């Protein structure tokens, strides 16, 4: 008969199986593949072990280097802008305005829709040569730009698509703002601190744990951006929006270089890991935790 232990195992089985099958196995397999010259169309058995050749290959691959540069550019522009924008809207929405519930929902809406392929397609129409933006510009007598045809503006359009999905970061910021006690601001009011100074001296320092969380999430997300370049720009023009995830996809499933594609994935993984590690390490210099760990001289109670 079933005992408690077996029933318990049964409950966790779906997750464990899913994890092994769709996370652990591909993780290991991709690493092994990255050390071979495996081709998608061939039998796996016919692949040859090539050591680190795929990795050294990247040093000579101009496309990879271009893609890497574009990816860093994309991440370094998108993440700070998105965090700043999400924080700004959260601060505004934290005011006691009329119909605040409506605005909160309205601002979150893009994030529900935004990740979908459908919206990316809409985006393509909006930015197309004869798209909405150019039509609107025409009405007021300005000749539009070929948004998706120019390297600079093509990148701009996929950055904008990501910025537009500031909702989830905003909601986390909003929760963080709500957790700051009102009387801190009242005390600051009495002391004559302006709203702006209150923001810099009270709100922002107390929000750093939330900022840190959002920062990590956004970094990880941004490095993995795929929909935008795939659907809107196709990585072009001139590979100007050819983000690494798109390259990984194309190497594997368009050019069938499974080994090289796997190696690229691992490089992306390491990049993300390094950034996350740096962020965690830097925490002690800028993140304030109300129950913090250091402060030994304080004799703080745990």
């Amino acid at each position: 008969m079933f005992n408690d232990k077996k029933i318990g195992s049964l409950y966790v089985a779906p997750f464990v199986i899913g994890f092994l099958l769709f996370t652990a196995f591909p993780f290991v397999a991709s690493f092994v593949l990255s050390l071979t010259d495996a081709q998608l169309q061939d039998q796996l058995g016919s692949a040859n072990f090539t050591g680190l050749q795929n990795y050294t290959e990247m040093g000579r691959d101009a496309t990879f280097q271009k893609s890497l540069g574009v990816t860093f550019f994309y991440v370094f522009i998108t993440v700070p802008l998105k965090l700043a924008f999400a924080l700004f809207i959260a601060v505004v929405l934290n005011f006691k305005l009329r119909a605040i519930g409506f605005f909160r929902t309205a601002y979150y809406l893009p994030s529900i829709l935004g990740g979908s392929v459908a919206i990316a397609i809409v985006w393509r129409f909006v930015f197309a040569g004869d798209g909405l933006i150019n039509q609107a510009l025409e009405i007021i007598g300005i000749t539009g730009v070929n948004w998706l045809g120019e390297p600079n503006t093509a990148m701009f359009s996929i950055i904008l698509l990501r910025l537009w999905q500031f909702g989830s970061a905003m909601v986390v910021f909003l929760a963080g703002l709500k957790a700051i006690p009102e009387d801190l601001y009242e005390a600051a009011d009495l002391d004559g601190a302006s709203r702006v100074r209150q923001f810099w001296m009270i709100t922002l320092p107390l929000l750093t744990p939330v900022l840190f969380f959002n920062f990590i999430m956004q970094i990880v997300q941004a490095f993995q951006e795929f929909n935008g370049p795939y659907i809107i720009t196709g990585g072009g023009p001139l590979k100007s929006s050819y983000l690494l995830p798109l390259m990984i996809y194309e190497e594997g499933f368009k050019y069938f270089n499974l080994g090289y594609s796997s190696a690229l994935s691992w490089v992306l993984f390491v990049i993300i890991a390094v950034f996350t590690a740096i962020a965690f390490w830097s925490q002690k210099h800028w993140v304030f935790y109300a129950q913090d760990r250091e402060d030994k001289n304080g004799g703080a109670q745990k």
Partner: protein
Amino acid sequence: MTSSSVRLSAVTKSFNGTDVIKGVSLDVKQGELVVFVGPSGCGKSTLLRLIAGLETPTSGEIVIADKDVTYAHPSKRGVAMVFQSYALYPHMTVEDNIAFALKIQGRPKAEIRAKVHEVAEILQLDHLLQRRPKALSGGQRQRVAIGRAIVREPDVFLFDEPLSNLDASLRGQMRVEIARLHRKLGATSVYVTHDQIEAMTLADKIVVLRAGLVEQVGSPMTLYRHPANLFVAGFIGSPRMNILPATFAGSTADSVRIQTAQGSLIIPRKDVSKPASDKIQLGLRPESLSFAAPGAEAHLTGYVTLIERLGGETFAYVALKEFECEPIIIKLDGETPVHNHQEVALTIELKRAHLFDADGLALGHAPDFDPAQV
């Protein structure tokens, strides 16, 4: 240090149509420490926040230091507030917390340092300046909160239940410290509390509030000896004043004859006009009752139902014969022999007895009370 008065004129405040403050007029003299007391929800904090400028009155006028500040920004009123929660900035050290207001004012660094250290010394915080609030005890946090107020040298200090988060012994200690500080700085202060002892010991003047209205204003002893109504009588003094039903049976220039379930009593009382209803109430504080000496006249008799020995003093609960009311409480010396179910005869210190009419208003006043003085 300058000090100045606070004046409220017919101040009202409603939140979403609910009247919370229903017309309060009040004068706080220079250097005075005024305490607001009253039951929970009566509007003490709201009144304090109105003075601070954290709320805007619905109507009425607020004057601080002869300036109309009814609609002035909190920082323009010359007030500093100590919050019940302390409201310390958790990410700043004690030093930065205390220095905050001065930094905002853009004072020179050297001056800020000097001031902060001066204040820290007064409050014995010198050795804690580099700590964060979470590494402080409750009493230390409280002192930082007070330090943050002092450093600004405000015209008026506002305290909202500053000691309520502390344990009993620390509260006693901080109470003494606040009293000492008030004497030292001599600044006008408004202090909100639930705590009778704080109110009685700290106040130059107590304001008793109920449901957004002032019930009585006066010195602690005035309120204790001459409560204007049943509410104040019940609120000030612990254990509470005993209330017994009685009937008005006539008065002379300086006394009232009343009828109780155990016979009639003559209570010394001045300026008594015949009440609308004969149904009145006799108020007796636990300490104005005692066991009748052998052979002496007894005013009341009953049985002891419960004894609470506190050491130095003993409270005896006595169920009175004939009366239809709760057992009354009598305060006795700790050494007085008394046992449960004992039959006792009680003497009332008649000139300390209180009378209230059917509406709960004091009927006349005690002979030693001078209405002109209040």
